């Protein structure tokens, strides 16, 4: 949160993060008025959702002015909630909409730093108003997403003027249970298709996806949201399961891992849902999950092979390069083979550009993975363990690497809580770290 405030201060200094003026009417509307008029609110949302670039970038500068011109304030609010779009926040504020503060506060939970910083700046610019708004709704503050609560605490701690009259005219915070009700859909969920208007009593796929997008921008973590995601992953409609799995990607470790693994490992599951589940798991810090993705990434005939390869090229520490050097993917066809080669090059380039500080940050996860395969007699043990120890050992001259190892080599604090398997793995990591530190550093780093 201190970063939020620092960022807001810097943005204020820089004058950055504020979207181009909305007064500039776009050269062309993103949709014909008669087409727009033929749709109801849900239909218009689907038009927005299916626009080539959705809400961001140059197209965003066309859609947001169009929504302003058409007075589509509810849609603009949805755009903020589902995308944290800074232009939409600005539009609501400039139009004096009573919803602008609650929408901007929601955007504080965005994982996209550009959006988050811009929202923070806009709120800080109206600190007396926002401070009063938080105070006015203190009783329901527990319903706010965690980043918003923390922001409110810092704003209150700063002290200063309050605009109570202005805050009284603003809309109340969202009730997330109501706002995100589509995270608990009925068993029947259908695509909106090319219809113009929603039918009463019908739940559409885009409504679930919108709620997932809103959850992603909120900053809500843990229960009950993980339970909702887990339930969506077991929904009878594959498109719902796929959407839920993909929504897990930016949540890193805050995911329903067991439900995702169930989808990934089910032979009866559709291939795209299995791949979506792998993507959803791909930032998990769990060594068992990471080892499983490496195995799938070395099996060209697995339905999620390209998903694994794609994400390993994003996040792997370099071991996959060795796996892929020996891998014959010809059985999967020339397209997959070419994809594998391209991803091997991309991963190689990323690892080659890595610096000592990057490796230092990765060492805890690298050693945890190595310890996992070692302790579970994993099929990768014979290659991954020596590769890990060699890679780290070759970088011992880097101060960041030694610092990371020294932290891992230290005795655990007595109050540390861990399951027996976690404790055993931590002990194995500790032994490896101590052994590595006992080695003389190589004169130059070789990776």
């Amino acid at each position, binding site marked *: 949160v201190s970063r939020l405030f620092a960022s807001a*201060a810097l943005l204020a200094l820089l*004058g950055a993060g504020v979207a181009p003026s909305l007064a500039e009417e776009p050269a062309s509307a993103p949709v014909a008025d008669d087409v727009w008029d033929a749709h109801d609110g849900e239909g218009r949302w689907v038009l927005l959702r299916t626009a080539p670039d959705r809400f961001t*970038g*140059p197209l965003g500068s066309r859609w947001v002015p169009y929504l302003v011109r058409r007075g589509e304030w509810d849609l603009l609010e949805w755009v903020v909630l589902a995308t944290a779009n800074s232009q939409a926040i600005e539009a609501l504020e400039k139009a004096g909409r009573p919803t602008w503060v609650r929408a901007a506060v929601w955007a504080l939970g965005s994982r*996209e730093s550009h959006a988050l910083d811009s929202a923070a700046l806009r709120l800080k610019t109206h600190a007396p108003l926002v401070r009063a708004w938080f105070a006015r709704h203190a009783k329901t503050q527990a319903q706010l997403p965690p980043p918003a609560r923390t922001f409110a605490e810092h704003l209150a701690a700063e002290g200063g003027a309050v605009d109570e009259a202005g805050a009284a005219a603003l809309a109340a915070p969202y009730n997330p249970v109501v706002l995100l009700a589509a995270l608990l859909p009925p068993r029947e969920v259908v695509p909106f298709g090319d219809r113009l208007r929603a039918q009463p009593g019908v739940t559409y796929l885009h409504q679930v996806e919108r709620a997932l997008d809103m959850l992603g921008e909120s900053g809500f973590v843990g229960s009950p949201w993980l339970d909702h995601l887990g339930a969506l992953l077991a929904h009878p409609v594959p498109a719902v399961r796929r959407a839920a799995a993909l929504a897990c*990607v930016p949540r890193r470790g805050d995911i329903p891992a067991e439900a995702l693994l169930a989808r990934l490992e089910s032979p009866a599951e559709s291939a795209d849902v299995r791949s979506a589940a792998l993507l959803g798991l791909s930032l998990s810090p769990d060594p068992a999950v990471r080892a499983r993705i490496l195995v799938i990434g070395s099996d060209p005939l697995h339905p999620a092979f390209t998903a694994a390869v794609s994400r390993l090229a994003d996040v792997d520490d370099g071991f996959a390069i060795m796996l892929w050097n020996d891998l014959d993917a010809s059985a999967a066809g020339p397209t997959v083979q070419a994809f594998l080669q391209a991803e091997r090059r991309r991963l190689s*380039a*990323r690892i080659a*550009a890595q610096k000592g500080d990057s490796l230092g940050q990765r060492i805890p996860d690298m050693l945890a993975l190595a310890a996992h395969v070692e302790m579970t007699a994993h099929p990768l043990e014979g290659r991954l363990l020596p590769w890990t120890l060699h890679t780290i050992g070759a970088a011992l001259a880097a101060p960041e690497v030694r610092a990371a190892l020294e932290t891992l080599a230290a005795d655990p604090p007595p109050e540390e809580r861990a399951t027996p398997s976690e404790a055993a793995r931590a002990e194995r990591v500790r032994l490896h770290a101590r052994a590595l530190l006992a080695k003389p550093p190589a004169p130059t780093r070789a990776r």
Partner: protein
Amino acid sequence: MTRSGLLGASVVAFSIAASAAALAHAGAGEAQGARGEAEPREPRVLHHLASDFVEDEPGARVLAALEARVLHFGGRTWLRLDASPIGPRVVAPPGYRGVAGSNRRTAEEIAAALADGRLEVRVRGPRGTARGHAFAGDLSEVLERRLLPDGRVEHVTASFEAPCRDVRFEVDLGGEGTHDVEVLLDGRVRIRATVRLAGGRARIERLESLGAHDGDAS
């Protein structure tokens, strides 16, 4: 890939990556003497330095890459600074569509800043202050991940309304001495480079972004 880059959009600072690896990667960009040699037919790279543009927080993500070169041709010496949303250290935006090595949001910010004329570059040296130019550089192909109905993942070039490009800054350095080059966004300094020209040689001594409290232009 030889490009590195700048500009993100959020609030950020620049962590400099003038690593030995980057310099080695630059290859021909190392300093070279110019005296006594016939003028080549194209600009000669006197020095090269690569850098990251990162979020202003510990463990920050690299949002873009920067590459600075001191060039010499026809008796003129200038600094060229390329900023790109593409680079092996650039992280993707959150979400499953993002592919490491390119950042769509950075690309959009660069495009918007260029289109709106919000970027400028200037140099302060022994001969005073002068302005340079900011313009569109190479075309960039920002990749995005797509999950096909058959379960395959493929990477496709993100579509933009306008071509997505790097941004390039160029500014004349004039004569020998120390030259401080500043890139400004919306009138505020976002990148600072210090170039030293002496004895026909050049060295980029510093290439950095500004911290959270030192971005005031003066």
